[in-house]
């Protein structure tokens, strides 16, 4: 049974985080706009994550295809393998796995970076230098994470499907053209759009949780490690919670 002190600290942290998110929205539209830092963060968060996301996406598509194949053969629907894998990757596995990889890489890096800046007074130095550190550090990172995860997910989906194509051709023979025709013919608007939209929320969650944990880091270097760790754990859990909400919402709108 949960202890009252745990419940109290959970609620207190939830309140702090809500305030932090509220502050983000109020800062979001007010000048001064940190465009240069935003584009730098897009490069760091997006471009630098591409090799990892691409590799895991490729393995995910390949493995999923190889695991599914025996069952599909048993049921005599082996020819439908590109269709099943395509829908699974685009609707669910691609966005969620990419977001989890993203949370591991970017959530921890933002948490540790801001945490170490906090304990070494770099955030204070920024403020003294005529900069709003919240805008410079938090707004730019959250925006960059929100914008970059959808892009990474699209690329990861494409690489996963290419991995799947190779997986099919390990045991069977399917032409490149036939594979992609089968995939795209069976993907509908309501398969792609909800999956694409939810990645914005996943990216936002990873960015805001990483920034919140880092920005509020304390207790010296131990606190930095804790910030990085809890940024990954909380954002991973949040991705699943958002995914659950997304599936309920798409169900209400009849997209399932």
């Amino acid at each position, binding site marked *: 049974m949960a202890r009252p002190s745990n419940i109290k600290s959970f609620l207190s942290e939830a309140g702090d985080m809500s305030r932090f998110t509220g502050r983000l929205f109020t800062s979001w539209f007010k000048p001064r706009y940190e465009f240069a830092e935003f584009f730098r963060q897009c490069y760091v968060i997006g471009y630098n994550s591409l090799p990892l996301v691409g590799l895991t996406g490729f393995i995910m598509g390949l493995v999923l295809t190889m695991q599914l194949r025996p069952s599909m053969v048993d049921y005599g629907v082996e020819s439908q393998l590109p269709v099943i894998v395509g829908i699974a990757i685009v609707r669910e596995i691609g966005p969620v796995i990419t977001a989890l990889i993203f949370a591991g890489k970017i959530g921890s890096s933002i948490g540790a*970076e801001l945490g170490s800046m906090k304990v070494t007074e*770099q955030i*204070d130095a*920024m*403020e*003294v230098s*005529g*900069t709003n550190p919240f805008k410079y550090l938090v707004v730019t990172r959250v925006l960059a994470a929100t914008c970059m995860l959808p892009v990474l997910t699209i690329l990861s989906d494409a690489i996963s499907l290419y991995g799947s194509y190779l997986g099919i051709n390990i045991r069977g023979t399917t032409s490149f053209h036939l594979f992609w025709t089968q995939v795209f013919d069976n993907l509908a608007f309501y398969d792609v759009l909800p999956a694409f939209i939810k990645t914005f929320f996943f990216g936002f969650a990873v960015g805001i949780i990483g920034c919140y944990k880092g920005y509020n880091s304390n207790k010296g270097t131990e606190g930095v490690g804790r910030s990085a760790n809890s940024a990954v754990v909380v954002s991973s859990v949040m991705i699943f919670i958002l995914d659950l909400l997304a599936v309920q919402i798409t169900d209400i709108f009849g997209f399932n």
Partner: protein
Amino acid sequence: MFSETAYIVKQPSEMPQEAVMTIRHLYKSFGNNHVLMDFNLDLYKGENVVVLGKSGSGKSVLIKCIIGLLFPDQGSIKVFGENIPDLNIAALDQIRARVGFLFQSNALYDSMTVRDNLEFPLRRHWIKVTQEEVNTMVIDALEDVGLAHTVDMMPIELSGGMRKRIALARTLILKPDIILYDEPTTGLDPITAREIIGLMVEIQKKYNTSSLIISHDMNCVRMASDRIVVLVEGKCYASGTFEQLKLHPDPKVKHFFE
């Protein structure tokens, strides 16, 4: 028991009397921990004042209140005639452009080169200068601290003493009228610490800045101070030159000089 005012030693008569900073009746608490209680201080143009106190006596809280990183519970901090707690962010930034702050941990940005670290406050305070002028200002500031060759290095490649000098160069680049030093010699070996203190004194002479130095390093106090303020129990407990306070009868003051 001595009365509090009995400890206050008059300003040395040769000191110029134009106050650039005036602190009156300053109070700051964190819960039940009363850090500053009715603290008063004047800083005059061209003067080096050292605030001397034990660890945890509220020295860093004082300096953070002055620069607007913390807000006092009560009292006024007038810098160039403007009361810091009353200022909005834009007005506060204008004051901050004239007040340099050397952080205890140096606070150099790890992800930037030395050049970018020095350019950062210039760019952020919206100072309209060309790239050529920026380059000259960066090199001049680095030459002041004797480290012009490190301009394209990363902070991680520098020693502790060099990082302190770079942080000092970053503080100097805006040509501040007041410099606040938070424990400038902490974590440095005695030789490097002496070099940093020498540099602080040299800079003060060269640019005629006023300095408020937070320290409990007695070498720093002796070498850098025109006047010393002893912070005890959140108050300005005693004030005077090093020689005057060394002979002070009160054990709470004497204790620092033994």
